[in-house]
């Protein structure tokens, strides 16, 4: 079908450049609240971009291999913000002028609930079988529990099978293993951009697989559309474009709920994307790592596993983890669900590199089994806290006149700070990010998500009230051009719980 001869020499247009900023006219859809508008740009919009994580990199290490040099470069560049953050982490008592992290997508709202649950006696079992080599796919007891859990929460029409489950140490590993077993070196996956940028590294480190960005526009193009909407048309264009450059595309990555947009695909959209993939014999990897973090009841989230009939079940692979939905990214538990036995087996044989301690596997099985606690204690409380935090940050942004996507899922808000970039360049975007960091608040800039329009930022709101308020205060100071930092008490009208072990209070903020 797409047996295009691999071309050797045609150069891909890799650099996103400052080319395309679209005008957002007055029709802003429900999500994007806009205040500023820009001059229309004459240039044609870019539809896709072939990622080359190594572009512009040259190694000069005498000790590392050339890919080792690139891998180290990944580490160095990823570290830039984090090193600064880790060296000066905010602590209420010890380092109140330290950096507040609104950049890492972690849910820090429910540690009290989790630590209580994880400390119950059923969690603490130690037995010899847990200390020895497990089945590489994961202990059977855990895979069975995962299958039951996903059947229930994904509302699958038929019970899911433990045989189709592979357990790994986090979704990063699932990406890495899938990339390796599905693609040859240099082949690619399509991914709608902006997307969670770390995936670039996950598929590249071992797999040497590339990502082809399907660029989405903030501009709203029709009455029933929304900003950054993914369409089959865009997928087709990107696929064609990549093919015409001789790049073999093997699959499509969908993140649902989307990170950083917070978007949720409707069943009809999902079906369309899956049909598109089937037409082109593409694998679809659906990352549903935020599926239980849909905190707005009105949002009807549908897992891909809930579809009555998958267009191409052998090429549909679903991943989920406890990192986000159970606020334990440090636990390193992720899972792959695929009906394709070959893929499951191949991924499982890479599990010797991506294994999880037997004791933790036991704990995860106990956690996922406890439906009562999840349904009656954890999820309602978690959603309420997420909602309150979201409401607070959304209110702050409104007060600043900053347009943003207001969705009811995920831990983050995708905010449009383009009005603060006079030239609308990525350099300015980076400078603004740096200014935030200098003012002791870490956020993420759009370029890190391969967003093609400079000026978008992701703010993570799933943090405790005192840190969040202080963080937002610093954000406001930067944007309002006030340079004095930090020492003043938070200006928000909440009383901070001084005792950190107490449940955090809800925000009682009047959104102006």
């Amino acid at each position: 079908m797409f047996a295009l001869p691999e071309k050797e020499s045609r150069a891909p247009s890799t650099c996103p450049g400052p080319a395309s900023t679209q005008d957002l006219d007055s029709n802003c859809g429900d999500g994007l609240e806009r205040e500023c508008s820009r001059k229309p740009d004459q240039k044609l919009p870019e539809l896709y971009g072939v990622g080359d994580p190594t572009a512009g990199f040259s190694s000069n290490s005498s000790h590392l291999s050339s890919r080792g040099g690139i891998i180290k470069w990944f580490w160095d560049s990823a570290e830039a913000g984090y090193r600064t953050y880790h060296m000066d982490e905010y602590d209420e008592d010890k380092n109140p002028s330290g950096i507040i992290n609104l950049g890492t997508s972690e849910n820090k709202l429910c540690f009290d609930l989790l630590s209580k649950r994880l400390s119950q006696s059923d969690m603490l079992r130690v037995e010899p079988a847990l200390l020895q080599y497990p089945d590489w796919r994961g202990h059977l007891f855990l895979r069975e529990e995962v299958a039951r859990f996903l059947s229930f929460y994904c509302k699958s029409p038929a019970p899911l099978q433990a045989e189709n489950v592979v357990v790994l140490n986090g979704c990063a590993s699932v990406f890495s293993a899938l990339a390796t077993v599905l693609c040859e070196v240099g082949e690619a996956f399509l991914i709608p951009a902006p997307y969670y940028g770390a995936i670039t590294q996950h598929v590249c480190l071992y797999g040497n697989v590339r990502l082809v960005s399907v660029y989405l526009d903030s501009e709203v193009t029709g009455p029933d559309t929304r900003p950054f909407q993914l369409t089959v048309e865009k997928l087709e264009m990107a696929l064609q474009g990549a093919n015409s450059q001789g790049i073999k595309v093997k699959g499509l990555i969908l993140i649902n709920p989307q990170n950083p947009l917070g978007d949720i695909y409707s069943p009809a959209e999902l079906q369309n994307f899956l049909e598109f993939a089937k037409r082109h014999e593409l694998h679809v990897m659906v990352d549903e790592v935020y599926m239980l973090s849909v905190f707005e009841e009105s949002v009807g989230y549908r897992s891909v596993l809930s579809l009555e009939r998958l267009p191409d079940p052998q090429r549909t692979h679903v991943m989920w983890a406890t990192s986000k939905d159970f606020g334990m990214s440090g636990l390193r538990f992720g899972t792959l669900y695929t009906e394709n036995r070959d893929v499951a087996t191949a991924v499982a044989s890479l599990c010797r590199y991506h294994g999880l301690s037997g004791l933790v596997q036991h704990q995860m099985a106990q956690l996922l089994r406890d439906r009562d606690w999840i349904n009656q204690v954890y999820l309602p409380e978690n959603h309420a806290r997420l909602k309150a935090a979201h409401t607070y940050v959304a209110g702050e942004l409104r007060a600043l006149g900053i347009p943003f996507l207001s969705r009811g899922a995920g831990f983050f808000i995708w905010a449009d700070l383009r009005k603060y970039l006079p030239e609308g360049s990525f350099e300015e975007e980076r400078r603004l990010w740096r200014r935030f960091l200098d003012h002791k608040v870490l956020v993420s800039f759009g370029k890190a998500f391969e967003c093609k329009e400079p000026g978008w930022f992701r703010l993570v709101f799933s943090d405790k009230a005192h840190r969040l308020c202080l963080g937002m205060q610093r954000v406001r100071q930067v944007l309002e051009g006030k340079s004095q930092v930090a020492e003043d008490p938070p200006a928000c009208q909440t009383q901070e719980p001084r005792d950190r072990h107490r449940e955090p209070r809800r925000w009682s903020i009047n959104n102006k």
Partner: protein
Amino acid sequence: MAGYKGPGLRREAHLCCDPTHPSLSSSQPVEAKTKAQGMSHQSDVLPCDQLRDQVIGNQSSHTQLMETLLHLRQTVDDCITQLTTRPPQLDLPLEEQRHNQATGEQEAFLRRVVNLLQSGAMWGLGLQAPRPTLGPRDDAGGGQQAQLSRQLDQLVHQLSHLEVAFVSHDLSNRGIDISAFERSKFQDFKTYQGDKYHEDKNTMGFINLGVSENKLCTDLMTERLSRSDMNHLEDALLQYSDQRGQPFLREEVARFLTYYCKSPARLDPENVVVLSGCCSVFSALATVLCDPGEALLTPTPFFGGLVMGSYLYSKVELMPVHLDSEITDGSARPFQLTVDKLEQALLEATLKGKKVRGLLLINPQNPLGDVYSRDSLEEYLEFAKRYNLHVIIDELYMLSVFDDSVTFRSVLSMESLPDPNRTHMIWGTSKDFGISGFRFGALYTHNKEVASAVSSFGFLNGISGITQYKLCRLLQDREWIDKVYLPTNHSRLKAAHRYITNKLKALKIPFLNRGSGLYVWMNLKEYLQPCTFEEELLLHHRFLGNKLILSPGKTYMCKEPGWFRLIFSDKPLPLKLAMHRFYEVLAEQKRDLRVKQLEDPQKE
């Protein structure tokens, strides 16, 4: 210890790069490279051998040879000029870059050929007379030489052939390799998982003396891990941590290694990276030190699982340094690693166009149980330094030296490392603490670049914060380790080892009697007729048929058929039953051999 019957030099070898045909110099190496990539099983031959022969045969050919070499160099240089007229371009598509890279590799290869031809010639010309025993010998049926080259690939492919041709439309080629590997190699393990021996519930089940696990101290371990200090929880443990591992764990690992490796100076936590198991550490290291297709030298027999997988994930190859069971003049004990052997293997690899980036050592060795003396270790490190090779030292069994008379010396105990920036040590708790299910491995390296690059894998090969905490508590408890765990563990290992070795002695089975590790390396050659790898595999299946899992030597890339590794670190009851099954299989095998012997002459 029975040796080989016919030590002799390979002389049927044809020249790979014939110096008398300069025209070949430009095309031949390129072809050699293609061959390597196309998994040719043809015998690659060592031009150096041939050169040496010529030299020995006719010393007067010296001048002639040097002329030829100069001519060859000229041709090669021309070829290089030709190849390098294309400037490297960074913005080219990947295929193009790869092409350029390949060209660069060819160029490097050509240079190396020339240099080696020269050095090889010099070597032959009187610096040192080649000893006949140095040449690889052809004993186990023709295939040996070929196996030298792409042994890893071959093994994978042989294994995959065990299955009915496995085709998948969904997997990439490497995915198919990985899957085939899983299907064949771990078929045994899967069967075992489904029908495990259990003292009460399944006495007829498989006893696994194939997987290297220490099951002797699960009582101590379970008790220690159940204490309340293990169950501490704090928010940092549930959140993303430093990718290199939680600082508290890295600090503890540094302290632990300083103490147990007897390091002259305190080790630095900044040099520690922790990942999910030693396989992960090795794989990450191999990836950042070697590009795809590059190689590490490895004395064989050696534990294959580690690297086999890395080959699948990161396409780093292994060049075996084959050791002999026979004691030769250069060695004092069977399977002894010498610098001569390393030199030779490096030369062979280089002549095959393999870029060797490092040397992998396992100490205490698996499956031999050997412990390197301080002097040998130093020699190996000096050798590596001479050739700018990295040394990866896997000291996974360092605390499983149960014989008091054996002195283990960690590489970290050396006063000064010959090349600290290229010396990387791996340790984990899987073997020494019998908790392979914990998935913990640590890297110690002075090289900051390497540490950083390996840290990039912290996401893909990370350890749960909860597990990191437990490990930290465990390693911290020096009192328990020194007074309770290690003494008990060593005395139990010793008892189990004594039990097994007595059985083997009674059966007159030769084995290596070492005081470390969890295994015995034994020679069942007597039970193979003919002594081939096919027969070895058949015997292995016979053990399996009797619900006993052992590991055949082929798995360890041992070049002599007939060797098996037996894990003795199991509880007395299963161990006894296992030896009973072992005995039965061998008795059966012996009967069959006798019948075969009687029948054979009749056939003729």
